[in-house]
């Protein structure tokens, strides 16, 4: 547990520095709010329409496939850490595991979902 104390201290110092800079900024900056400042920045033009636009749903498939490979990475992490003790057998296991997922990648590729249109 104690080795994580440094993490906690790091966290607190990190948050502290950010808060501190905000505080300094507040002290030295001029304070002059007016309405136009809150508008969307549009190269000095008055903005038209809404800033909420529909996304290309391609992003979504990428994100979904990313999640799958992210989960795979989670399995790779302990495997890599303990690889020294696990030996050849774990290597074979992981190759099977990845081979099955590589088929998924091949499938997605062939289906053309990785192509940006």
């Amino acid at each position: 547990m104690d080795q994580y104390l440094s993490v906690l201290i790091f966290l607190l110092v990190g948050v502290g520095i950010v808060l501190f800079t905000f505080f300094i900024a507040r002290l030295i900056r001029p304070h002059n709010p007016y309405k136009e400042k809150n508008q969307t920045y549009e190269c000095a033009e008055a903005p038209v329409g809404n800033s909420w636009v529909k996304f290309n749903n391609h992003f979504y498939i990428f994100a979904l496939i990313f999640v799958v490979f992210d989960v795979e990475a989670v399995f790779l992490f302990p495997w890599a850490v303990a690889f020294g003790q696990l030996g050849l057998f774990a290597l074979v296991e992981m190759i099977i595991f990845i081979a099955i997922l590589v088929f998924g990648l091949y499938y997605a590729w062939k289906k053309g979902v990785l192509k940006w249109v």
Partner: protein
Amino acid sequence: MPDYNLRLIIPEIFLFLWALFIIAFDLGTKRKNPKLIGYLTMGGIAATAVLLYLYHGGISFNNMFKSDPLALFFKVIFLGSAFMAVGSSFDIIAQKIKNHRGEFFGLVLFSTVGMMFLASAGELISLYIGLELTTIPLFILAAYYKDDRISVEAGLKYLVIGAFSSAILLYGLSLLYGLSGTTDIVMMKINLALLYLNTNGIGWALLMAIVMVLAGIGFKLALVPFHMWAPDVYQGAPTPITALLSVGSKAAGVVAFMRIFIDGLYGFADAVMFPLDWGNIVAVLAAAAMILGNISALRQKNIKRMLAYSSIAQIGYVMVGMVAVSELGVGSVGYYMFIYLFANMGAFAVATIFNDNTGSDSIASYAGLSKSSPMISAFMAIFLLSLAGIPPLAGFAAKFFVFAAGIQAGYTWLVILALLTAVVSLYYYANVIKMMYFAPDNPTIKLNTPLSANIVLIIGVAGLIIFGVYPEPILNFALDTARVFGF
């Protein structure tokens, strides 16, 4: 290196690789040949059955994978339901699914592999992953008609309910693990018994585990009161998938139930264990399922919804055998599911053929079918009468053994209720038959069936007649599965 006995999972590995092959083949041939993929899928399932015959019997992966008679028996049911679902989906693939044809069959096979892993699970984590592998492909398949609002709604509903029930199940399983300190089901049985003796009753934590696991599996089984998703999902999903849901995934739920409750929680079935006695809880749920399923089915106008409520009622009958927790109980449940496979897959196959030709699912549109398609009407009548339990069809023998097991275990009230509701069920099954045979002619209907669907229908009818007249071999096999639990 420990002995993993990989020989035993050859059928599962083969079926999984076959699913990959089907998907890759479909990609490679650009979906030009839907019929060929369909037959390849059916061939792969048949080949898996042969492999299953060659490689079974034993334990591998430190008791996590059990290839025992129970697993074997249910794997036959899973393969049968997948075979019949694929066989009856040829027209749907040709007409309605223009894209992702290989994936349709591939996902059916993935789900079947999941059921097979589930049936063999001797340990909670494998059991849970097997269950997920069974249901996740079915979420996708239920929403397969992407342009059809009802189908998408079915998929979404099934996904949300499925995820919710998985979470509940997982919570229950983690409580069981916390109490017993092991995920192995046999060890769990021993540890829970020791814990019970050492601590003068385990109390609420175990009760909560039981209730949560029961709710989790109850959702998968569509057991009342966890059934509300079933009619909508059954109606919206493509009909062969509905059939697979109602037979394959239900049988998977039944075997999961057996592994956890009859094996792992064996000691807590009896009423002496009050309030932990899951036997009485399940009996009450079974009674509710039979009453609610049969009464709701009476009012249905849509054949798929009618069959959905009928399957809710059928799971109630199955549970009558389950709560008996005896050799006859386990055997009769297995036998019931085996017969249910033929009858229900057959009935859904007829519904599929009818919908492919007419585009309608309403019971009223079956009027006068016997004049234009006498064979299919006769088959449908046989399937429905077997579901109702009319002798000499196999459904009668199935109900008989389940009820006998219930009486033997002292659940007389439940069996009397089951008999009464079975009489009610006759009404709505007979209603469809009356429509087909005695309603005025409807000359527009002429059903064309592809060869594969005919094979499915013939398998269904043959199964019901042969095993109805001569139930011994299957019954003996089913009773043999009870050995797994030491009865």
